[in-house]
């Protein structure tokens, strides 16, 4: 049963198109993430669902009712803001109960509900505190409780964890997900952190420059990206320059070495392409599996990252660099710098991108850091 439906939703600010033709059908209880870089339109779309922006075109339907033109205070959605936006003049309990107070519920009912939520958020004795007395993580939980108090039909979260420390972020996002599951509430979650999106969602919408790039489960998005943008934004990626030998048979050369790719692509003989490859698909050593591609190169760098060892290998005359990750293990025998090694990857692993496609590569990411 489609619970939240956005049809051809579009938002334009003067000449600037922030959101082009957004379409989504979310089921009841589903957790959907909008994932993308700053300025891609994900927050704007969320705000249109909340009612803070008016769509230039399109329709938003919630549980069968058209809410496109309804003012924000008449929609039954609960929003959690990036900056928490807790009311500083009210206690935690008053903050949480605000939505109920505005709906004129009796005060004993409000108190009961507030206590319920304080329990749920694991803040049992903080009801009479003021926001400034709480830590960031606690404030965010209060914001979440506040949004849930009046039992909204949809929960909206606008990058709720981006202002928090890394450790708290990981802990809190699990809490959010488990509470969401417990309550079974339809949720839209906006983030630029792909780890968050992938680990929490039932489905992910990847956005870029106002467009929906791809909609799918985290598994689909990661393993079967349909556009270059999705491939590069989600997860890390090796980008290798290749030259087409025979597109129909999936043959290219990378750094002069032959490679077979089991996916459809186009290109005339001799044309430049870029071959995208996830680090975890590449393994050290000649893979015994039949038909696996093999490339030979020299080790440039071995970086120990804790649970992962990252090895950079230059292919051919050093133009192409492959980054591969191996799980750290005390018995691991790591290659040395300047050692010649063989790497292998399966034939259906790589993605072939147009040479002109704008993608971020692992190299670029390392260079930026």
């Amino acid at each position, binding site marked *: 049963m489609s619970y939240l439906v956005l049809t051809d939703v579009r938002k334009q600010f003067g000449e600037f198109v922030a959101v082009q033709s957004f379409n989504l059908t979310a089921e009841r209880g589903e957790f959907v993430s909008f994932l993308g870089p700053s300025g891609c339109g994900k927050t704007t779309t969320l705000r249109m669902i909340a009612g803070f922006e008016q769509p230039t075109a399109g329709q938003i339907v919630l549980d069968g009712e058209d809410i496109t033109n309804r003012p924000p205070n008449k929609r039954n*959605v609960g929003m959690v803001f990036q900056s928490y936006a807790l009311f500083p003049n009210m206690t935690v309990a008053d903050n949480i109960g605000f939505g109920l107070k505005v709906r004129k519920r009796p005060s004993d009912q409000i108190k009961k509900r507030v206590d319920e939520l304080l329990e749920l958020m694991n803040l049992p004795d903080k009801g009479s505190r003021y926001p400034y007395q709480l830590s960031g993580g606690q404030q965010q939980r209060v914001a979440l409780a506040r949004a849930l108090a009046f039992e909204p039909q949809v929960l909206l979260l606008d990058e709720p964890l981006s202002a928090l420390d890394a450790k708290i972020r990981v802990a809190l996002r699990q809490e959010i997900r488990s509470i969401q599951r417990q309550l079974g509430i339809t949720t839209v979650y906006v983030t630029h952190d792909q780890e968050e999106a992938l680990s929490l969602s039932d489905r992910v919408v990847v956005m870029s420059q106002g467009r929906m790039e791809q909609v799918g489960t985290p598994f689909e998005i990661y393993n079967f990206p349909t556009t270059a943008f999705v491939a590069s934004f989600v997860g890390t990626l090796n980008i290798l320059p290749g030259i087409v030998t025979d597109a129909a048979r999936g043959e290219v050369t990378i750094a002069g070495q032959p490679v077979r790719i089991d996916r459809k692509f186009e290109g005339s003989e001799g044309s430049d392409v870029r071959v995208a490859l996830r680090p975890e698909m590449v393994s050290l050593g000649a893979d015994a599996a039949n038909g696996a591609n093999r490339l030979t190169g020299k080790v440039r760098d071995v970086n120990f990252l804790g649970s992962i060892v990252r090895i950079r290998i230059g292919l051919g005359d050093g133009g192409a660099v492959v980054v591969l990750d191996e799980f750290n293990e005390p018995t691991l025998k790591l290659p040395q710098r300047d050692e010649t090694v063989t790497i292998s990857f399966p034939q259906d692993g790589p993605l072939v991108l147009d040479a002109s496609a704008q993608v971020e590569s692992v190299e670029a990411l390392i260079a930026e850091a």
Partner: protein
Amino acid sequence: MAEAVAPSERGAPPARPVRRFPRNWLGLIPFFLFSFLFMILPTSFLMIGSFQKDDQFSLQNYADLNTGIIPGAFFTSIEISLVTAIAGGIVGFALAYVVILGGLPKFLRTATLTFSGVASNFAGVPLALAFIFTLGQLGILTVFLQGLGLNIYEGDFRLTGKFGLELVYLYFQIPLMVLIIAPAIDGLKKEWREAAENMGATPAQFWWRVALPILMPSILGTMVLLFGNAFGAQATAYQLTGGTLNIITLVITSQIRGDVLHNPGLGYAAAVGMIGIMVVSISVYTVLQRRSERWLRS
């Protein structure tokens, strides 16, 4: 200084902390000296004078504050200050709100704030004159209304009276409120309103339950500041009324001119009384200011 000498005599710890102590204060000596000579000393002399009656130490002057024209003067001063503080506060807040959040073109906000900076400084003689030119017996507004058949001087209205003075004082009270409350209104986060709306509040409910409570310390604090501002004003009142209105600053004015109270000590006591009231108002302002800063910074 005694503390500073002991350690060096004992000789054990480094001499630096000892030598640094007076040197750190050196740079502040001109300031302290100047402040003492021209601020603390005159104020102290006033206080000393207030305790003297007929060249003897006496508390009588303070008791005598309740005699003659003085209580009336204090009362009227306080009344005028309260009225202009509250009215100026409310109107000033309304103007600031309207120009920042009311949907008016953006340039009006800048214009209003700049003008407020000028107008809050346009007190004293020129302001009194400007109002005489407007609402005096021959003022352009008076004449204009007479042309319409309305004679404002027919009734009790006198520009030189209490109400007239209040009207004039608002000319610098309102801008002062606008200037001080504008940053506070700016400090209202957009997200608060959105969060309130999101939870079902109407704009009125948002203002009543969230925005006004958050702004209240600022508003009240500024009103207190406005109170002190009006309480101490003299030049405007003197020029407007010729010294005829019985407010405490004009009483002091007459006293300086020539001991109208026939008791120098009483004059000083009245002055000290004024200082006391100002101290209370500044203290209240400081407390409220701190509270508002804490909330608006969150």
